[in-house]
């Protein structure tokens, strides 16, 4: 294993600090015409009506959502790469994002509109997508081979994506609405999003906590893990379930935001090494960091307009990933 650069408490405190700074930035910066100082005043209890509205009803909600989604995606990314032992694995590959997207497409097609999209629909789609992949993996021992699992997931994502495209071919109205949803955005989400997503997040995290130690053992090999009293099959299943719940929640809340689940594990591993017991907590802080950074940038680049955050995460994330990967030997999983 690669020698860790930082100790876990160090890394965690740096990450937490970063996160705090970014949260404050998210509350003070934006595309609106109000400046930083008025925002600060509003935050501290000032009485400017417009400023208060913007800071508390728009930016606050957005920041909370970014925390939730970032946390979910960061954790899911680490878990998935650990269980598949494949650093190319990304939560979207399990068919979860594709399932959620397909469900949304279906719903819009049948008459709903993207804004009133009930979280349940997307979540349902995400879970169904993942369950299908899980079923496939249970059959004929595909589950034993992580590569084939991810391959199956990729095939499923491909199928669901194509079915979505098929539906969109048919219905231009849906296509037009989906065009925006499919990029992923934190702005303008219905106000009850957080109420719905919090249980999902907590459920997923609970599952994650249950499988952390077995996963760490699994990294030493199946025999070792069994010898230590864990059940490899169950561990894998549990992990996948956790990933599904987490990604389903995130996608339902903000649309598919693809890159976070891929790069956060890399950064975490680079900082503290490969042991999942060390990287999981760190990823839960790094995920929101990256997402908030992307969100703030998306607000500042084209004022008074905004770019969709799903686009900016790629522009922010890709250089980070390349930088992390470039100069160092890649720690193996």
């Amino acid at each position, binding site marked *: 294993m690669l020698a860790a650069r930082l100790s876990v408490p160090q890394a965690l405190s740096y990450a937490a600090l970063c996160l705090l700074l970014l949260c404050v930035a998210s509350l003070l910066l934006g595309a609106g015409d109000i400046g930083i100082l008025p925002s600060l005043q509003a935050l501290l209890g000032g009485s400017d009506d417009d400023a208060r509205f913007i800071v508390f009803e728009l930016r606050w909600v957005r920041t909370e959502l970014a925390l939730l989604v970032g946390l979910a995606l960061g954790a899911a990314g680490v878990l998935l790469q650990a269980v598949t032992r494949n650093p190319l694995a990304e939560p979207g590959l399990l068919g979860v994002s594709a399932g959620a997207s397909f469900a949304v497409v279906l719903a819009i097609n049948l008459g709903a509109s993207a804004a009133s999209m009930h979280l349940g629909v997307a979540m349902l789609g995400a879970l169904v997508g993942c369950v299908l992949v899980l079923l496939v993996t249970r059959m004929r021992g595909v589950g034993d081979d992580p590569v084939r699992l991810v391959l199956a997931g990729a095939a499923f994502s491909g199928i669901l994506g194509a079915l979505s495209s098929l539906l969109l*071919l048919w219905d231009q109205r849906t296509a037009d609405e989906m065009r925006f949803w499919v990029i992923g955005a934190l702005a303008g989400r219905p106000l009850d999003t957080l109420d719905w997503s919090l249980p999902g997040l907590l459920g997923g995290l609970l599952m994650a906590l249950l499988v952390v130690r077995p996963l760490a053992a699994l990294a030493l090999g199946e025999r070792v893990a069994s010898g230590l009293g864990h059940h490899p099959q169950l561990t894998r299943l549990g992990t996948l379930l956790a990933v599904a719940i987490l990604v389903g929640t995130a996608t339902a809340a903000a649309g598919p935001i693809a890159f976070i689940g891929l790069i956060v594990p890399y950064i975490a591993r680079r900082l503290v090494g490969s042991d999942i017991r060390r990287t999981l907590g760190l990823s839960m802080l790094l995920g929101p960091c990256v997402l908030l950074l992307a969100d703030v940038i998306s607000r500042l680049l084209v004022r008074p307009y905004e770019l969709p955050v799903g686009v900016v995460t*790629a522009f922010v994330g890709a250089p980070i990933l390349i930088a992390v990967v470039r100069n160092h030997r890649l720690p193996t999983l």
Partner: protein
Amino acid sequence: MNISSSRPLLAPAGHYLLRLGGYSLLLHRRSMIVALFLSLLLVAVATWILAAGDDTLTPSKALQAAFGQGEALQVFLIQELRLPRLIAGLLSGAALGAAGCLLQTLARNRLATPGVIGIDNGATAFAVASIVAVPTSLAPSALALSGAATAAVLTFALAAGGGARGYRFIVVGIAIGALFGALTNLMLARSDMDAANAAYPWTVGSLNARPADSVLLLGIGLAVGLPLAKLLVNALSLMRFSDNVAIGLGVRLQRMRLLTLALCVWLTALAVAVVGPVGLIALAAPEMARHLGNRHGVPVLNAALSGALMMILADWLGRTLLAPIEIPVGIIAAVVGGPYLLWILLRQAPRSST
């Protein structure tokens, strides 16, 4: 060339040994049979597709029309519409199948399609840009080619230093791909509906009205690339094992890797410039080749044949299912190819690595 059967000890079981002058070529028997079978199937299906869907056409009439004989309308239909489309499909499918096979062997990871390392996305981004964003007189096809090349060059440059097992290359490729993908999404979201519609074929992969010069370029590239790939097969087969084994057996690893990668990018770029991003062919065609033939080799030729077959079948399905609405070939490839891929996966016994 003569099949040397007088010294059977030199050819392992299930192989033929061909000798020409000082060179010898070892051929896997089953692969050859599969290649033959696929070729015949390809010819049959292609001919059938030429005539399909039109009550007045029979395969023989279609072939005649291809050479200019027959009713004017039919000749036009075949020569201007169907034949170019068929050729574009065959060539791009073959190129994608071969490229997929090469990359999977190189990366020792069956997920590694050329699309994963960002070439598809680069091509799409540039092509879409030419339609919705940047007013330019260059054809989207030419821009797709430069987009693919740009993505490849960026990935090569940023992943310089090799790194263990070529991993770094794939990861950087994913990053570049995501960048270009985001760029495409952004451009499409900013454009109006009509421009987005015009750019649509380039985002899903379509064979509708492909320009002849891109197809010609692809044909030349394939004619050069496929034999080259076949020559590399020996070295590639050895690279499937660990690095040390390969080096021990005399393979010049770095050079082989670079060459294979360049070849893969070359074939993919040309194919994507014609058809757009049809990633699944590159994923499924090698699987099909392995399933039918040699499980442990690097079936480049069979992958090419499978890819060609899949592509033209997918295109035909797309044109026929909801006529007159055409479903782009990329969508069909995913909808039909996906389950097929799953089926193959399920039927195989679990193995520990590719």
